[in-house]
């Protein structure tokens, strides 16, 4: 996997918490800047299909990605740009996929948030909500068969996805098998336009943990420090053999469902609550307040992010689009068993 963005940020050793915090913050920043760039390309008509942003979700996402190690599994969802970067996905995978480049990991066959590299533990989501969790279970089961120890698997879900049968079957399966699954549910108050009260009736989604016999954790998703601690702690628990961990993080989606959506339906009430804060602003203030970074460092980081993003976009824009004539129209790895490669079939 390409690690265009890795060098500058991973430079510092993550020996102490302020350093981890800074590192996490810089992934968040990079994700934010990268997504803003894609959004502007979208507005300029340069992106085909949907564009989905993680604005407001970076703290939760990065805390998940950063807690994972090589050999772990990560099944991100649509708002996980920050976590993907922290887990090790290259920024180029992001731009190449959004631009449908032949050289991207999805080769133009799939786009936008539907990308991954299964060999490196990064699962390419299918759209059907909830469907990735049991796939993570299976990878963890395989680790168990193969005698790999100490690995974990994390999957992201939204409040809305908790209503799917797939969510239920898979968390239950993980509980029965005592798998080291970390299920991060980001309750951003809405599923597309649908508010929580039309989605579930429990007072807190974490109340579901008891009914599955798994540990439950809640966290303020706007606060990077809490996210690093709670999610990091849950990952540790899973790693040490304590079975599945359900984390419910609260925040507000600070963008449309996709960039086509003006999200007018989001109640202004939420915007005034602490959960309506922008986690990047919160983290920035925290950095400054604690003296873990000063204004000029923030400026440098922002500039560095812009440079990386511009490079990744420029690179992707130069890459050739897929060529249907050279495309291998074959859905099987055993090519001789595939049918219908002629247009007539």
């Amino acid at each position, binding site marked *: 996997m390409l690690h265009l963005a890795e060098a500058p940020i991973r430079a510092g050793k993550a020996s102490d918490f302020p350093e981890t915090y800074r590192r996490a913050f810089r992934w968040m920043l990079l994700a934010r800047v990268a997504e803003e760039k894609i959004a502007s390309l979208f507005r300029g008509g340069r992106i085909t299909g949907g564009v989905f942003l993680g604005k407001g979700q970076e703290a939760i996402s990065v805390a998940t990605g950063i807690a994972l190690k090589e050999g772990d599994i990560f099944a991100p969802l649509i708002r996980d740009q920050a976590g993907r970067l922290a887990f090790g996905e290259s920024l180029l995978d992001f731009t190449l996929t959004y631009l449908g480049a032949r050289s991207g990991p*999805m080769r133009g*066959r799939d786009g936008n948030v539907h990308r991954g590299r299964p060999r490196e533990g990064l699962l390419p989501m299918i759209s059907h909500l909830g469907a990735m969790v049991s796939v993570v279970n299976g990878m963890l089961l395989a680790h168990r068969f193969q005698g790999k120890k100490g690995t974990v698997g994390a999957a992201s879900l939204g409040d*809305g996805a908790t209503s*799917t049968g797939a969510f239920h079957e898979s968390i239950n399966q993980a509980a029965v098998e005592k798998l080291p699954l970390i299920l991060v549910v980001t309750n951003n108050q809405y599923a597309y336009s649908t508010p929580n009260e039309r989605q579930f009736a429990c007072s807190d989604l974490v109340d579901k943990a008891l009914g599955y016999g798994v540990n439950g954790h809640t966290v303020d998703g706007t606060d990077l420090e809490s996210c690093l601690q709670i999610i990091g702690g849950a990952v540790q628990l899973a790693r040490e053999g304590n079975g599945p961990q359900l984390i419910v993080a609260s925040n507000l989606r600070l963008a449309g469902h996709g960039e086509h959506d003006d999200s007018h339906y989001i109640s202004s009430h939420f915007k005034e609550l602490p959960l309506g804060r922008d986690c990047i602003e919160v983290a920035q203030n925290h950095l400054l307040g604690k003296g873990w970074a000063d204004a000029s460092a923030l400026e440098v980081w922002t500039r560095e992010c812009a440079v990386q993003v511009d490079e990744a976009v420029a690179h992707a824009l130069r890459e050739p689009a897929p060529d249907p004539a050279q495309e291998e129209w074959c859905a099987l790895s055993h090519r001789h068993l595939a049918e219908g490669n002629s247009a007539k*079939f």
Partner: protein
Amino acid sequence: MITYLEAIREAQKKALEIDPRVYLYGQDIGAFGGAFKATKGLAQTFPGRVIDSPISEDAMMGSAIGAALQGMRPVIEMQFADFSTVGFNQIVNQAATMFWRTGESCPITVRLPSGGTPGSGPFHSQNLEALYAHYPGLIILTPATVEDAYSLLLEAIALDDPVIFCEHKYLYYHLKAESLPETALPVGKARIARTGRDATVVTYSAMLHEALAAAEELAENGWEIEVIDLRSIKPLDTDTVLASVARTGRILAVGEAWPWGGVTAEVLARIATDGFNLLDAPPMRLNSKDTPVPFHPNLWGTHRPTARTIANALRDLLRL
């Protein structure tokens, strides 16, 4: 001018107006008006009858079936046809078997925003009509025109049997008509969209327009291609197709779905068995390729049949 999407909205509006048993249920279809705005304004006009559902396709379908048994006429919007695979069991095993098992009809309408558009990719582009048609007990409608989007949806809601309504997203905004129709062919009747004498193209949904363009192209060289819009793929109006083949002697079936066991297979099997002696040349079919639907427009444009590939197939069929 009214679009295909607006026709779908108008049909739902009319159904809500004329029949108190009708209600709509689906993700984000209430105040928000739906992912495609097919129910825009309806929640406001019909309070309590246009209901946001949780992301629970199985329960959405199950509850529709229960309500139908109890005298209601639910119309369910799947956000994309592709997600109906999660509610599949309720549709094919509960709704579709209800009448045969119990003698009670199960009048539900399931709207499936179907088909490919550029950039939609493998999970927002599927055409699932053949899946549902394979199971006994369902009616499968595939409107290709603004008029049919309206009249077939109204008829679907009025029918006592479960209907899978495959509306094509590619036509939502593109396709326009002067006005909504007053009368219409009934469910089960195909329509001759263009008359011809040299060959018959049998198709449905978005592919109708590609086929008409191909016919137009061949007309420049004097070929007269008859184009049939199936409208309903179950029941499938074999008679109209046979009558056309009796006139032209040649048939090409075109579908946007995958080839194996799709509409084109069913059409050709019927024509081969019942119209064998009417054929002057081997029948032909054209489908999307046997892979998932690609995201990139370059690939997508090659994956599905187009006017160009249909015209080429027709030249083959006519042995040009």
